[in-house]
């Protein structure tokens, strides 16, 4: 049934065209035979006959042209409408169509195909090689093999998903590609035709949905970590107090300039350090605070640094901190501010580790905390600058979007900066960044101080 229908349409079209041609032929013959006879009967002078013949010829050309126009115009219009319809439907479906002829290394594709890949063309032709360059390197081989299987008839139809980076863009888009081959009368493959559908948005939604699930699970995990941290703090602080006290007893019972006395002092010093770290960890893992209170930014910064110091040392990251002394206390949710600083430092660390897996003299983070007054209002600025991967303009536009991440899903949720942004906004502040791709990134948080 499917095969018959197009044949009927074809036959009807032929019959219609044949009828019109026949009518034109008959009328033409009648005109040629009778017009000459009429002219012969009406005109006697040869001069008049020539003039009338010329006019007759002109009349013939004009009517024929008019007929050709009326016949061709609707066909062209229909063709154009169909083309537009196809373009529009491809635009709505965010899809593009393409075909590759056998023994050709060029790809012929629809306008929207080129639009999706951000390519410019007048001929709708592009080399297969240029397309391959845009495909994710892990999927290039698969693409080539699929095309080859279709060309050699090993496969009749194929459906694959590819990550493709449109020309000049920084991130990959996800496309679903369906292709099949076409044969000539002898069964030889003449071309491969395909459509590709942009499913980036669908994928993103799917991922977001999955992430929501993960997130609620993570939330529960975080809450239990808070409870756990409190228990751990108790468990650690007890023996620490014991060690500290024993150290004190040794110190008390030895000569103040003896070696043992010095060791005992070191024991006490080190136990203080441990308890400080435990206290900071405890504070960080606590449930979010609802009330604002006065806090010193200097304390917040150093508390955060004490938590990340070991990790940074392990990663060979050089961390320098310049913190203004005597910054007045500021009314804020200190835990949340700490979360922002922690987030900025973590991002910088990830970026540096991506750029320099080992040691490098440029593997550094510069943290600065200053207080300043503008229009009679006191502000505190905290900036974190790293010399890592940098942020491209494209990524920069979406950097504060929830769930947007350039990191591997196992590493980042894409929520860090959007939460940080929310926290800073809640404090009536600004979180901005400047960056140069491949050079540096500097995030600056500016919080107004009410007092």
């Amino acid at each position: 049934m499917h095969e018959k229908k197009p044949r009927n349409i074809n036959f009807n079209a032929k019959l219609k065209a044949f009828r019109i041609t026949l009518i034109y032929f008959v009328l033409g013959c009648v005109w040629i035979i009778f017009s000459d006879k009429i002219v012969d009967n009406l005109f006697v002078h040869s001069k008049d006959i020539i003039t009338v013949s010329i006019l007759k010829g002109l009349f013939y050309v004009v009517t024929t042209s008019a007929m050709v126009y009326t016949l061709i115009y609707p066909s062209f219009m229909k063709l154009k409408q169909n083309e537009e319809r196809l373009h529009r439907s491809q635009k709505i479906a965010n899809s593009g169509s393409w075909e590759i002829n056998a023994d050709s290394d060029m790809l012929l594709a629809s306008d929207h195909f080129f639009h999706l890949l951000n390519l410019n063309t007048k001929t709708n032709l592009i080399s297969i090689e240029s397309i391959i360059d845009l495909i994710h390197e892990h999927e290039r081989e698969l693409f080539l093999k699929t095309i080859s299987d279709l060309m050699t008839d090993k496969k009749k139809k194929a459906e694959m998903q590819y990550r493709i980076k449109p020309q000049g863009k920084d991130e990959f888009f996800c496309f679903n590609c369906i292709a099949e081959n076409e044969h000539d009368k002898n069964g030889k493959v003449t071309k491969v035709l395909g459509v590709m559908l942009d499913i980036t948005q669908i994928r993103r939604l799917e991922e977001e949905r999955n992430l929501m699930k993960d997130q609620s699970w993570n939330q529960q995990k975080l809450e239990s970590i808070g409870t756990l941290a409190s228990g751990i703090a108790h468990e650690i602080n007890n023996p620490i107090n014991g060690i500290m006290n024993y150290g004190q007893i040794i110190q008390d019972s030895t000569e103040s300039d003896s070696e043992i006395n010095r060791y005992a002092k070191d024991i006490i010093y080190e136990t203080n350090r441990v308890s400080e770290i435990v206290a900071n960890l405890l504070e960080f893992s606590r449930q979010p605070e609802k009330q604002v209170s006065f806090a010193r930014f200097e304390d917040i910064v150093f508390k955060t640094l004490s938590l990340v110091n070991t990790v940074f040392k392990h990663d060979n990251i050089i961390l320098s901190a310049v913190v203004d002394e005597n910054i007045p206390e500021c009314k804020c949710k200190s835990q949340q501010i700490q979360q922002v600083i922690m987030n900025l430092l973590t991002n910088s660390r990830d970026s540096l580790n991506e750029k320099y897996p080992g040691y490098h003299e440029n593997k550094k983070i510069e943290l600065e905390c200053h207080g300043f007054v503008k229009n009679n209002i006191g502000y505190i600025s905290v900036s974190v600058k790293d010399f890592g991967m940098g942020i491209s303009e494209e990524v920069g536009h979406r950097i504060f979007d929830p769930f947007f991440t350039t990191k591997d899903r196992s590493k980042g949720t894409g929520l860090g900066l959007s939460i940080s942004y929310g926290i800073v906004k809640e404090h009536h502040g600004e979180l901005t960044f400047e960056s140069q791709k491949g050079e540096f990134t500097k995030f600056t948080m500016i919080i107004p101080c009410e007092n």
Partner: protein
Amino acid sequence: MSKILVVDDEKSIRITFRIFLSEEGHEVFVAEDAETALKIFNEQDLDLIITDIVLRKMSGLDFIKIVKAENPNIPIVIMTGSPEINTAMEVMKYEASDYIIKPISKEKLLEKVKSILKTFNRGL
């Protein structure tokens, strides 16, 4: 000289606090659980009790409740290794006099004990 009871299930705390406080001339009793502590409390005329909140068998807070029911005037200092925002609230709720956040140095411990005894006019 005052009679001080230290209640903690952590042996090192009991030993070291006893040494520190004894050095200052106090008579120090130690207990590792609330049961032993109550026994000492009933036998001795104590001037101060220093107790951890987390104890085996009975919580430190329940222990305080019993002690306060019998002797509302005795100063009690609670100890905690995991300070929460509401620690101070707990102190007030159980009518304890003060609290200590572990780890606490010898110097600070003695200072605290001294100030509490002074406030409550005990052992002076």
